[in-house]
Each structure stands twice: as C-alpha cells, then as structure tokens.
C-alpha cells in the first residue's frame, strides 16, 4: 500500500468560526495505480490533496491519519514534512503559467527541487535537469534550460511542472486539475506522458478533476466526493457502467456524447450546500430525486457493495426500514418530553 488516508477531518476558520470542509474522508492508493477524485467545485477535492501534504492555511484543524508506505506523515513535524514534499510526494497544480516563478529560468526552477532534496554537485544537477526535460518530451532541452516561463506555451509549461515534480522520483504524484487550463489535444499528450511516467517509475497518482473524460482515460479507480464527503468509490469501468449513488448517476448523465442528438443533457437541480449550513441528514438529499424521509434525518453509512465498490446512500442500506422506526420513535419521545 502506497498511501493510506483514514478518517480525514478538516475544518477551516471563517469569520471566527470553524467550519467543516472534509468529513471522514478515507481512501488508499496502490503503487502503479491512478486514483481519480471527482466532484463539483467546492466539494473538497483540492482540500483533500492539500491535506495529504499539509499545505493548509495556518488556522486549519486537521484530524485523521495519513500513511505513506509504513510512515505516518500526519504526525511529522514541519521540518520533516518539508523533506517529504517534492521528494516522496510531488504535486502538480492547475495553471502552469501561475505555478512557475516568472523571474527564474526554467532550468533554475527544476534545479531547485534537486538542491532541496539531493546532494548532487552543480554539474550533476545541470545534467539531470537536461535529462528531465528530455524525459518529459521537450525538444531542444539544452536551450530551454535558459528560457523563462513566459517564452513557453501552456503545454510546455505543464511539461516543465511535471519535470519539477518528477525531479526526485516521487512515489506519489498528486495532480490538481493538471489539464483544465490546456486545450484538448495538448491535454491528451500530457495525460499520455503522465501514464508513461507512472509505468516507468511504478508510482501512484491521485488525479483530481471534474472532467470525467480525463477519469475514463487515465484512472484505475474513481472516488466521487460531494460537500466534503466521499459518496461513492469504485473501479473505473464499474463506476461508469453501474453507478449507484444518485449524485454519480447525475454526473454521468450530464456528459454530452458524440452522435447523440435528441437527448437533453441531464443536470442536477439545486446547488451544493454551503459548509456553514450543512443538513443533518445526507448532504445530497435536497437535490436527490430518490430522497426518502430517512435521507433528511440521518447520514448514510458507507456500504461495501462489492470488493471494489463502496457507496454512502440509504437506497442500498437494508437497515433503513428498522432505523426509520427508531428515528420516528426518538422524535416522538422528544416531542412528548417537550410537552
């Protein structure tokens, strides 16, 4: 097991109050596997990634356990964590233009990772930088070392970001919407490059995206998040063929398909509940067309449907009838008490 995340809880301070951003997020990534994390904006995908690296704002409260290999990194000091960042775990961000420092040359920025985490001499570092540039498929690597980010195109810049991330041969690569800012053909090349690097280095990838096309192309497993919770997780084909959670079904229906004319695209009515104002029951209940009474009253448990498919939804919970009675009884007793 490469990465194991257990019961991640994150709250951030907004206007003096702690509000819950992530609630009980657990998942794992194997060597050589790509895990996709999908969901609408604000569902906590990026925050999950930043929580693993602990790149959070100062006033964040984080609980839960993050394990890389056999090492528990969620307990490490800041100093020790700096040794892991960019070395064992690397990250690629969404916008390759703003992720590069405009004042330093490309070569210098790749070298920075080597300065921070290796003892290579200056000469060795220079050679390694050129090697890395070639590895990520950039032509004229020798000249590019001396160029500045603004002289390069979006796709080239994202390749540079990948070169920086790969500089120390990380075991885990976290990509936060790496292709959102790129056009479709470049997007395909970048995804292909990442797949190639994954296979060559036997590393794990976490791919955060809202593009289900990207998921279908590169991911082995997919985790669907909604309002800070994991609602469904499955092997990629399983999820596309047998989605269980009404939210996942809604997401899949919202994808336009080539060759289809008549069908109106599905959309999910309503908006994501704000973290300041989360419902007591299932967080998706207000937008769900299958919502039942119980969905508004209690949070669904995560159910393991098969070995590689889990879902958090009352529709698949056999106990819902029994629980329903319990809840009504509870409410009755409460009302009698208040009389």
């Amino acid at each position, binding site marked *: 097991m490469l990465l194991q995340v257990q019961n991640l809880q994150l709250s951030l301070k907004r206007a003096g109050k702690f509000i819950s951003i992530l609630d009980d997020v657990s998942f794992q990534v194997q060597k050589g596997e790509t895990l996709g994390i999908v969901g609408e904006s604000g569902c906590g995908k990026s925050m999950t990634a930043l929580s693993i690296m602990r790149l959070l704002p100062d006033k964040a409260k984080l609980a839960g356990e993050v394990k890389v290999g056999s090492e528990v990194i969620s307990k490490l000091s800041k100093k020790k964590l700096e040794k892991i*960042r960019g070395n064992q775990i690397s990250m690629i961000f969404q916008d390759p233009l703003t992720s590069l*420092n405009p004042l330093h040359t490309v070569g210098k920025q790749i070298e920075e990772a080597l300065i921070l985490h290796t003892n290579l001499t200056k000469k060795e570092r220079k050679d390694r930088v050129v090697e890395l540039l070639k590895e990520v498929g950039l032509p004229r690597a020798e000249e590019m070392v001396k160029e500045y980010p603004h002289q390069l195109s979006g796709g080239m810049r994202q390749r540079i970001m990948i070169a920086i991330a790969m500089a120390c041969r990380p075991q885990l690569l976290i990509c936060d919407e790496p292709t959102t800012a790129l056009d479709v053909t470049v997007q395909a090349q970048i995804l292909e490059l990442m797949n190639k690097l994954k296979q060559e280095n036997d590393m794990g990838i976490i791919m955060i995206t809202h593009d289900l096309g990207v998921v279908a192309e590169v991911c082995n497993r997919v985790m669907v998040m909604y309002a800070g919770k994991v609602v469904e997780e499955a092997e990629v084909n399983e999820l596309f063929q047998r989605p269980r959670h009404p939210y996942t079904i809604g997401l899949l229906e919202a994808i336009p398909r080539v060759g289809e004319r008549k069908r109106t695209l599905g959309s999910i009515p309503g908006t994501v509940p704000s973290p300041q104002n989360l419902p007591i029951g299932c967080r998706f209940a207000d937008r769900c067309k299958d919502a039942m009474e119980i969905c508004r009253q209690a949070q669904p448990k995560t159910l393991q449907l098969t070995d590689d498919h889990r879902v958090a939804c009352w529709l698949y919970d056999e106990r819902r009838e029994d629980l329903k009675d319990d809840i009504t009884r509870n409410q009755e007793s409460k009302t009698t008490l208040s009389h």
Partner: protein
Amino acid sequence: MFRRLVSSPLTVFGFLVVFILVITALFAPLIATHSPTEVNIVNKLQPPSQEHIFGTDEVGRDIFSRIVHGTRISLKIGFLVVILSFPVGTILGAIAGYFGGIVDQFIMRTTDIFLSFPGIILAMSIAAALGPSIENVLLALVIVWWPWYTRIVRSSVLAIKNAEFIESARALGANPFRILFKEILPNSIAPASIQASLDFGFVILAAAGLSFIGLGAQPPSPEWGAMLSSSREILREAWWAATFPGLAILFTVLGFNLLGDGLRDILDPKQR
C-alpha cells in the same frame, strides 16, 4: 531597456544631471578652481566674474568650488541613507507581509509610530537630541526613512504571497525563509526600489534643510544647506551667495526625481 530609457527626453535629462553630479563628486578637487575653505577677506562678496564664476561669499571663499565640494557631502548622505534604510525596511516589510499575525502587528505598529510624525520634524528632533553634526543627520534620516520601504514591500508581498508559484514552492519542500528570499522578495522589490531611486533626491533635500536650520553640517563645511543659511543676511547685497547653492539643490532633486520616474516606467511590468 536602454532604448526605453532613451525614448523619454526627461529621463535622459535626469540621467545626465545625476551623471554630472557623480562625476563632480568623484573629481571634486580637480574640478574646483579654488580651495573650498580658504578665507580671503579682501575678496569678499565678489559678484560672478572670470576668476570666480559663481562669485565669492562673505569671507571671500569661491562659491563654485564650495558647491563642487558640497556635491560630495550631499551625494554621500543621499546614498548612505538610502543604502542603510532600504535593506532594513525591505526585510522587515517582507517578514511582516509573509508571516502575518503578531509579527506583522508588531512591525507595522512600529512603523505607524514613526510615520505618525512628519518625517522632517522627527528627523529634526532626533538630530537635535543627538547633537548637530552631519553624521547625526544621517542617522536621523535613516531612522525616519525605513518605515516607508517596510510599508511598500509589505503590500507587494501580500499581493503575491498567495500566488500559485509560492504554493508550488511549498509543495516542493522549500522552507519559509527560502520561499521568502528566493521566491517572494525578488518578485516584490521593484516598487520599493523605484521609491528608493526617487528618495535620493528627497534625502538630499532633507539633509540640506536640516543643515539650513543649523542641525547638520557646521559652517566651514561646504554643505549646500549650510551655505544657504549663512548667505541669508547678505541676500540683499550678494544674490549669488544664495542663488547658486539653491540651484544646486534644485537640479539635484529634480535630476533624481526624473531618473526615478523613468526607472518606474521601465520597471513597471504593465508597460512591458
């Protein structure tokens, strides 16, 4: 960059003035026609002539030579005050902006204390308390000047500290000080350095002002403010004794200002 500099005639003018000033200061003994301090009572209050092109003062010293030597004092003050207060202000501002919280509060409230008095009044009281001399004027001006850089740098640090490339440097495992000095400072120093280039002129003006009221350079010294001060009583008989040091101050401040403005246009990323 050179082409941009040349394309603005005012910047070229400013550059020329500053260039001439620097040359004058470097080669003062060669350029001056007489000794700046030699008294010659017989020759006192001579109007400008072939022998004394800017005339002589109330004890017969050659005003041109005094102004030439005074360039050294003024440029030295301007240079030292900026060179000493700039790094102090810049580093404090960067720390305040980047770390925020209580550190920020402490540094910024300290600058507020300094900025709550008019600079020249504060400098006057410091110089007066330390005793009148050119070194104390220098110290007083450094104390008054650094908070400006702190404020400027802090605001530009705040503007870029949440940029994605800062985040990715953190993700790469760089520690906070490395991020501050390698990623943030180089990207936020331009506005403060433009202010610094404009400040050369203002520091020279402030130093001349302090010398004028007797808190800075003392009488035999050919400091421009002190020269102006001692020529007050003879203004009616000898216009030249006050006019030429005054013009020297005027052109120096103007030159540095025009150069600073030109630099701002060149360094401003929006105009690139």
